[in-house]
């Protein structure tokens, strides 16, 4: 029986660029920025790195394929650099690889970095991803907003909820994230919005309006990991250690049976259960202090609260409206602004989430610092509700 990853690996240092429309920064520039901050935070030199993992999703408009773009951009000392790509969970996958390498004793210190340069397309929103030669011959020419908007139609049907009630709840999700993003100097969108603005915004994909969709941003984030002993040896205190790393990938059940009702993400529930088990979390609603979830769209965040077993099924609307996930609520969610406002450079997002929780746990989050957070969870969802990859990470103070 595997013993799990809990407390075997610690975060030595982290870095994250400002996210946003970085018109004058290349993906290489972004990598250098995030890497520089992470290495300075870690207090080590490149020669101490044993291996590196590189996450980027859209090679055609970013850096190109493989590990070389990162090896060259960061002038790494000819260590192994491996590109990982797993849709929006890519950043978390890079972290998983680096953490596993350290835990396995294959290297002492490992680097994971994610970058995405999305603002070289010429238009807003995400570019279409390549999907092979069969899928385009039958699958809709679908876009993310309409894929995720379907959660809303199915959720309403399941819970017999009127459109206005759900629309108002998901508006609250966005209003909250904008309020949080306004206090984060690295966030892409730092403006507050009112519920009225969200409700009246132009429709992108029914029922989602403009403010129900996350920012499309350039950015990079990096993390250096090592063993707790090495970290202590390097003089680090208040260690943040990895408690759980879980990934669940669809196997077709959602589409190849008629059992899934379309109102939630099957993989998220599986990954959450496994992660809580690995981390020894018995009651997540009581034990978690902070959440960074994949709020690509406001409706995704709302159903994720149920998928993570924080809100009871059908009850997320009430919890959201009660402010349970607001900055001053029981479990603040997206305290850094989330994908919604911090932004969503795909390959970097998982590491960006980790960055915020790391800062919060170490008490270094500045004006948005929460009181005594101990345990945080990150959640990424790549693909779409009907077939996706979900990663869930739990990190916390070593003592927890």
């Amino acid at each position, binding site marked *: 029986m595997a013993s799990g990853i809990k407390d075997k690996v610690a975060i030595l240092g982290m870095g994250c660029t400002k996210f946003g429309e970085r018109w004058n920064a290349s993906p290489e520039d972004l990598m250098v920025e995030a890497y520089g901050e992470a290495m300075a935070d870690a207090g080590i030199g490149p020669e101490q790195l044993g291996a590196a993992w590189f996450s980027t999703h859209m090679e055609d408009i970013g850096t190109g394929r493989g590990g070389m773009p990162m090896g060259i951009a960061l002038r790494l000392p000819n260590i192994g650099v491996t590109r990982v790509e797993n849709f929006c969970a890519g950043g978390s996958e890079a972290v998983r690889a680096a953490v596993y390498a350290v835990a396995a004793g294959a290297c002492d210190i490992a680097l994971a970095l994610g970058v995405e340069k999305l603002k070289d397309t010429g238009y807003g929103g995400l570019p*279409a991803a390549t999907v092979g030669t069969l899928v*385009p011959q039958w699958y809709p020419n679908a876009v993310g907003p309409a894929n995720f908007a379907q959660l809303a139609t199915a959720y309403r049907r399941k819970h017999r909820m009127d459109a206005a009630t759900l629309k108002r709840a998901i508006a609250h999700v966005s209003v909250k994230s904008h309020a949080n993003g306004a206090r984060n100097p690295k966030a892409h969108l730092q403006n507050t919005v009112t519920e009225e603005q969200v409700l009246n915004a132009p429709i992108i994909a*029914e029922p989602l309006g403009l403010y129900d969709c996350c920012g499309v941003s350039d950015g990079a984030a990096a993390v250096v990991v090592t063993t707790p002993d090495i970290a202590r040896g390097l003089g680090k205190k208040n260690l943040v250690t990895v408690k759980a790393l879980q990934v669940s990938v669809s196997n077709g059940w959602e589409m190849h049976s008629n059992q899934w009702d379309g109102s939630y993400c099957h993989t998220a529930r599986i990954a959450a259960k496994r992660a809580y088990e690995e981390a020894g979390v018995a009651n997540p609603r009581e034990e978690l202090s902070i959440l960074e979830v994949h709020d690509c769209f406001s409706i995704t965040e709302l159903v994720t609260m149920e998928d993570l077993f924080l809100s009871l099924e059908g009850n997320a609307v009430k919890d959201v409206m009660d402010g349970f996930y607001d900055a001053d609520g029981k479990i603040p969610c997206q305290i850094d602004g989330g994908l919604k406002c911090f932004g969503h450079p795909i390959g970097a997002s998982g590491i960006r989430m980790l960055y915020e929780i790391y800062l919060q746990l170490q008490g270094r989050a500045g004006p948005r610092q929460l009181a005594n957070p101990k345990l945080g969870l990150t959640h990424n969802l790549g693909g779409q509700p009907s077939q996706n990859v979900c990663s869930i990470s739990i990190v916390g103070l070593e003592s927890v």
Partner: protein
Amino acid sequence: MVGIVGYGGYVPRLRLSRKAVVEANSWFAPHFAGKAKGTRSMANWDEDSITMAVAAARDCLGPCEDRSGVAALSLASSTLPFAERQNAGVVREALTLGRNVEVMDFTGSQRAALSALSDAVFRAQAGAGETLVLAADNRKTRAASAAELDFGDGAAALMIGRTNVLAEYLGSATISEDFVDHFRIAGEEIDYAWEERWIRDEGVSKLVPEAIAAALENSGIAAGQIDHFIFPTCFQKMEAQLARKCGIRDGAIVDGLMSRIGDTGTPHALLLLAHVLERAQPGQTILLAQFGSGAQAFVFRVTEASASFRPRTGVSGWLARGMEEANYTKFLSFKGQLRLERGMRGEQDKKTALTTLYRHRETILGLVAGRCEITGEVHFPPSRLSYTPGCPALDTQRPYKLAERIGEVLSWSAEYLSFNMAPPHHYGQIDFDGGGRILMEFTDISRGDVESGTKMEMVFRIKDVDELRGFNRYFWKATPVRPLPSADEMKAAE
């Protein structure tokens, strides 16, 4: 006895208001003011002669999965999408007809459908089994032309055979003549036509009566005995003039549906025939003629068995299901005559891997899923491994057709982000009666037409157009099940 053993039709849902066209063009072509009456049928952007032929064939064949009675299939059209690639072959795949079915394209003249009908009659007479004769047209016209107002889009289907004959074939005749009333050289999109007076006086008025006389003689029927006279024409009162000239009773003249759908071209005679067959009484005789590179005429007599057959929707059903469209620019855009701004998302390459298409042709063109023999779960697309919890089963799936099954919307959205010819772009997950689920595009749809739980049916449509290489990608789409109008409603619509 040889004759018609089944029939059907198809008229696209959209009916373009002629008033909208005339008003939009009035600054340029004020002389069309008198034509600002009624509607013409208008294909959706994702329809062409192949997809409309499939719709007409399904109207004729019904939902029955066993279509093994079809021995041959012909598709007549002057607007076949492909100059190379057998168009009727695509139709055969969509209908999931067997590989042993002989498949033919007929084209080159407005009476190509009657040539196909001749061929089918001869096959039946020779005992070669039943032939499904399909005809469809989606003609392009110049903006602000008479043809733009007169033409329509549509399709028709006739099954010709020897068992349970609904209308017996009595005789036919053909006059072949290189009378060039209009032409279109290969590669061109729009016809070039000569003066109407010459076509009426020297063409239609001389060649059609000759063909009719010969057909009547071959049939042993006198002109005065004809109960239904079908002659499609855009020319005012041309049918009446011909009837008088040929000795056919005035009351026998069949309304050409010009005011409602326009002249659909190659399929129009068969479309009108399919319409007449819905109401014709046993013993009545039908004469149909069409003009084009000569003339051709057929005579049928309705049998006692005629009441035993009903098309699924029928021409009268399609007529009643029309929706008026007042956006002239939508018509121009759908016909490829007005290029609206598509944005960069519209630049996405739509290259089709033909090897992949061939491997998956039954899945893509026939909408054939795989049903696991052990669990009964339906997989789309089919796969070697079936989903069974904990123990994927290998090679347990058998072909399972979904095209004729009704589905229900599980979830959906409509978005304005991706490029789509008819925004907002609707798609969602469809759960099929009996199992199976596909995330698919919706068509013939307006905002507010769907909600979770809405019943949907499948239609064969163009999925994507590869403008770079000139290729249409076909697949199935979902459209709301629209109840057939009641008999009273249909009567009122007539």
